């Protein structure tokens, strides 16, 4: 009713003004004053029509159902066909985005986000001794709104271990204070900020193009040889400089301990004063290099183990990474060098290397990718010798990701792994994964 009234009113005003103008033109003498008056009245009428038209547009947007609002394009003008077509395509995606709810968290309540994945394979994605269907993980992360500067992030992960038992990990429990636009200080358990992959993807399989993490970058309890989590203090931020942006991280936390062949971040505290200290410095380019990020990371730690004659190793890890992430490309390169010192024995210094390169190209919903990873870990180094997954290997893989929509993806990967020192095994695998985010 209201809409009809607006239309009727607008049209009457318009036709009234036009009628007056016509009558005046026909009957009145062509004096300047008369013409000026008519022009003024016509302008006023046109402005009123414009305002009513905008009001009508808004009322229609309000009255229409949400999906229709997101998808209803304006009537195209001939000269704007190309732009309109492009906008229509984008509008479709925005509609999907609204459905996915990825960017529609309200300002009230506790925002809950998460990832989940399931899959199948001729071998397990993490444990090659298993095959068939498998549950990956269910990962919730909470980001409560706690005021202007207080921040909090809690991540709870449910996964199935090698025995089929449900395992629960408090992946992250960090509370922070935003000092400025370029600095936030966190306290608690966080993702150790080395390289790029560990903080960018972690348990978020749906946002990761590839089906699995590089093996040497796996989580501590899944075969990783580096501390994926640290319990401590973390300062992070970014500063814009010219067209690009510098990013930085500095952290200190409890030193890890190798227990039962696995790195333990010792989140309940230490029995001695040994810490991990490190940082990460990156540059995110702008302009024609938009999407390129390069950086360096470093951490040092004193790591012990639970052997009968316990070893202590000073771990020095130097990282180098480069990523090129655009609408089309997602290329990742990470390289790590270990320069470890034996503190408890007489074996001296040991040098080891690990790295991977991944190239992916987005073709609308399909993203084919390939990855090569390699770890050359010195077995006389107690740090690697004490870890169950401390052996050297290389793996090549090709895969494809298919995005069903913005919130779910199917992935297929074929890999070939060669273990080069401990087991000297070689095997291939074919894996499938269905990953979602919410």
């Amino acid at each position, binding site marked *: 009713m209201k809409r009809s009234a607006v*239309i009727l009113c*607008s*049209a*009457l005003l*318009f*036709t009234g003004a036009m009628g007056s103008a016509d009558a005046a033109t026909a009957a009145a003498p062509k004096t300047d004053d008369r013409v000026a008056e008519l022009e003024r009245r016509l302008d006023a009428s*046109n402005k009123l*029509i*414009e305002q009513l*038209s*905008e009001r009508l*547009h*808004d009322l229609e*947007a*309000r009255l229409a159902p*949400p999906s229709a*609002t997101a998808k209803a394009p*304006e*009537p*195209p*003008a001939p000269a*704007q066909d190309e*732009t309109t077509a492009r*906008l229509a395509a*984008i509008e479709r*995606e*925005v509609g*999907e*985005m*609204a459905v996915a709810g*990825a*960017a*529609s*968290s309200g*300002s009230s309540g506790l925002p809950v*986000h998460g990832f989940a994945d399931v899959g199948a394979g001729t071998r397990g994605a993490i444990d090659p001794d298993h095959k068939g269907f498998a549950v990956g993980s269910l990962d919730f*992360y909470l*980001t409560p709104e706690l005021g*202007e500067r207080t*921040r*909090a*992030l809690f991540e709870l992960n449910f996964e199935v271990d090698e025995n089929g038992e449900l395992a629960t990990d408090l992946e992250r429990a*960090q509370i*922070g204070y*935003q000092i*400025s*636009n370029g600095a936030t200080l966190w306290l608690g358990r966080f*993702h150790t900020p080395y390289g790029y992959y560990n*903080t*960018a993807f*972690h348990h*978020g399989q749906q*946002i990761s193009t590839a089906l699995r993490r590089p093996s040497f970058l796996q989580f501590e309890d899944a075969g990783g040889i580096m501390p994926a989590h640290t319990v401590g203090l973390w300062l*992070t931020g*970014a500063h*814009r400089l010219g067209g690009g942006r510098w990013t930085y991280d500095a952290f200190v936390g409890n030193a890890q301990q190798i227990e039962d062949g696995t790195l333990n971040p010792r989140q309940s505290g230490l029995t001695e004063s040994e810490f991990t200290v490190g940082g990460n410095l990156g540059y995110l380019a702008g302009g024609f290099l938009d999407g390129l990020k390069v950086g360096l990371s470093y951490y040092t730690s004193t790591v012990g183990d639970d052997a009968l004659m316990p070893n202590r190793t000073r771990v020095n890890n130097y990282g180098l990474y480069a990523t090129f992430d655009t*609408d089309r490309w997602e290329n990742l390169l990470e390289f790590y060098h270990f320069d470890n010192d034996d503190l408890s024995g007489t074996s001296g210094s040991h040098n080891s290397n690990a790295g991977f390169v991944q190239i992916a190209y987005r073709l609308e919903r399909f993203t084919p990718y390939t990855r090569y990873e390699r770890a050359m870990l010195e077995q006389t180094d107690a740090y690697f010798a004490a870890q169950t997954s401390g052996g050297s290997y290389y793996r090549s893989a090709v895969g494809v990701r298919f*995005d069903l929509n*913005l919130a779910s993806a199917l992935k297929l990967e074929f890999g070939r792994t060669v273990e080069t020192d401990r087991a000297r095994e070689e095997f291939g695998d074919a894996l499938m994964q269905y990953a979602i*985010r919410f």
Partner: protein
Amino acid sequence: MRFASRSIVLRLGARAALAALLVATSHADAPPASLVLYVICNPSVEVSEEDLRDVFLGERQFAGDVHLTPVDNRAAQPVFLERVLKMTPAKYSTTWTKKSFRDGVNPLPVKGSNAETIEFVRREVGACSYVTTTPGAGVRVILNSTG
């Protein structure tokens, strides 16, 4: 009954003709409203056009002492993403998911229409958004983009 039916038909016909005239007139002398984009902020917010990318991607939380509250506007989002952020909706969505996952910052709330957005920005200290209709008084226009 016949008079009533005739009256309804005439009224509907008149409405249709007048609505068509109205639409034709409004499109004849101005580009469609959806092709004019205004990025607007509450008058309390002092940011420049160069800051907009950081504001809407969660990299900038404060303007001076004012805590920023950017919101998306579903009615104008395609135009905004294309002209200001120069991102596809998929890229925008994934960027926010990564940002939220890494830094604990929540994706922007979404408003449903230009009118709702303008009212929110006018009322809320620190608010910023974008619309495809003339925003009127009570807001600061940071960017006015056509075509």
